[in-house]
């Protein structure tokens, strides 16, 4: 297999001005500016093969976006190396830029006041996509992303979900071989999240594209990625299959129960660790192996009004991973 992405000891420090609090601090900073270096990414090394779809996990501020920015060429690293599709990303060669795309869920490249189709045509010109190919890609994207006639409407009139899908289409018109997705489902409702996920999967399969995605949404990761890379405070903590990660660190599920009368925490302790009891609701961490039995017992023993079994959220797993290491 060909390697699409490779980093060796990739490191990035941010320099930010430090100001003492208060007015005097402000005056001092005006004349004598002090800087502080913060290490955002710390000697991260990994290899990703062509066509892989890898989840990139970590808490807020762990260094995910910084890494994606380096891989797309937006940032130059402080030290270390990276090659993406045979290029050094931060040289920003046109040949490289034509093969990649970076989509940031909270940023938009669409022109706000005019229909998205105009931005698409601009991208057609920017990437030099021949007309026939453009039409073909566009039809396919409109179909897969169910964009219909949303493309004729000024972008500001679109809903967040519609805009995000149009954003995705704009980023993929040139059929990038490498796709870096930063929080592609942020702010979307579950139906939209699902559509975006299905699309990412389909794009990966159809085009054999390499995709790296960050998400706080566990479902995104579970449904899309066999392999995950976890970083915490800039350091690589885990690189391997998702199954193994979940087995190892998410060894329990969370029960969220609403009763029709108050139940004491002590009573519920027999099923697992009680995280939280308030009035008539309770949150219990139940070991994976005992989920079925515990659920049945709770339903049998107590007057239950509402019952939910949830996965541990990704930040939790990452936190566990961090404390274990």
């Amino acid at each position, binding site marked *: 297999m060909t390697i699409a992405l490779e980093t060796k000891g990739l490191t*990035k420090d*941010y*320099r930010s001005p430090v100001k003492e609090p208060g007015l005097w601090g402000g005056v001092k900073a005006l004349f004598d500016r002090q800087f502080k270096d913060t290490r*955002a990414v710390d000697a991260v090394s990994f290899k990703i093969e062509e066509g892989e779809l890898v989840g990139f996990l970590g808490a807020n501020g762990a260094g995910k976006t*910084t890494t994606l*920015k380096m891989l*797309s*060429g*937006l*940032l*130059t690293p402080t030290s270390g190396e990276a090659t993406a599709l045979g290029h050094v990303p*931060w040289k*920003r060669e*046109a040949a490289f*830029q*034509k093969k*990649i*795309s*970076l989509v*940031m869920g909270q*940023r*938009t*490249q669409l*022109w706000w*006041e*005019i229909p998205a189709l*105009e*931005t698409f*045509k*601009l*991208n*057609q*010109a*920017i*990437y*030099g996509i021949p007309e026939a190919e453009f039409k073909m890609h566009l039809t396919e994207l409109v179909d897969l992303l169910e964009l219909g006639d949303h493309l004729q409407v*000024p972008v500001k009139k679109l809903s967040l979900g519609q805009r995000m899908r149009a954003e995705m289409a704009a980023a993929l018109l040139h059929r990038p071989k490498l796709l870096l997705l930063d929080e592609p489902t942020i702010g979307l409702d579950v139906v939209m999240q699902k559509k975006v996920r299905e699309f990412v999967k389909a794009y990966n399969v159809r085009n054999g594209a390499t995709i790296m995605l960050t998400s706080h949404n566990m479902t995104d990761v579970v449904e899309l990625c066999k392999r995950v890379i976890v970083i915490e405070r800039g350091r690589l903590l885990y690189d391997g299959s998702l199954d193994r990660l979940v087995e190892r660190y998410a060894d329990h599920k969370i029960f969220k129960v609403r009763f029709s009368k108050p139940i004491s925490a002590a009573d519920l302790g027999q099923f697992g660790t009680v995280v939280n009891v308030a009035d008539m609701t309770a949150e219990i961490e139940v070991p994976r192996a005992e989920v079925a039995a515990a659920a049945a017992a709770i339903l049998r023993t107590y007057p239950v009004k509402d019952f939910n079994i949830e996965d541990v959220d990704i930040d939790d797993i990452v936190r566990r991973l961090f404390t274990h290491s």
Partner: protein
Amino acid sequence: MTKYLRAYSISLQETLQRRTTLMMDRVGGFAIVLSLFSFWNALLGDKSSFLGYSRQEMLTYVLLINVLRALVFTGRGWQLVGEISSGRISSYLVRPIDYYGYALALDLAQKTVHVVFAFLEVAILAVFIRGALFIPTRWETWLMFVLAAGLSSLIFFFMEFMISSLAFWTSESGGPLFCFELFLSFAAGAFFPLDVLPEALRRALSATPFPYMVYFPARVFLEKVSPTEAAKLIAIESCWLVVFIAAALSVWHVGVNSYAAEGG
């Protein structure tokens, strides 16, 4: 080339789409011209000339200010500052396009729209003051005027681009941009012909690129400069353009690299 044409077209659409902004800009500009017009009209009273400008020339100068403002001073400097400080600029830096060429295409589109409007406004005023305007008859004058004004327009773009690029280093580059624009209107002769200023100040200004922005093209139009003098000044103006292209592009490149080094 197609990408810049596309950029031009998309910016043209947006400018026309944002009708309120466009109208506000036009009404604001027109108000300035209208007040200058009344001011000079009153000042001239029944004098036939002032500071070497006949009544006809002075009123023409004022109307030229409207057209030249639209052609030269229209730009997206503030948007660039916003795009850099909000990080939106990133989406351009990962695409295969030279941002300054792109920005120039966007500005040219806005300039096109504003110049068309400025001409219409002037035409309306001209109807009211029939015969009181100076219209050159020599084609050379028109050619020189278009050349001089075209160059000013480009100089302004690169100046503004350079100052806006300071946003890569400071979140407050709106400040320098604001000062620049204010000073420029004055130093370029966009409020009054620079002949109003004391000799020493005028001399000092003539060593800067500012008088080339409005004052010089207007004087070419009014045939106040001889063709040889005009050719010489156009040559100097071209040098200023080269200087500002070089300066703007270096500031931009250093800015992009520091953005890449310090984080977006």
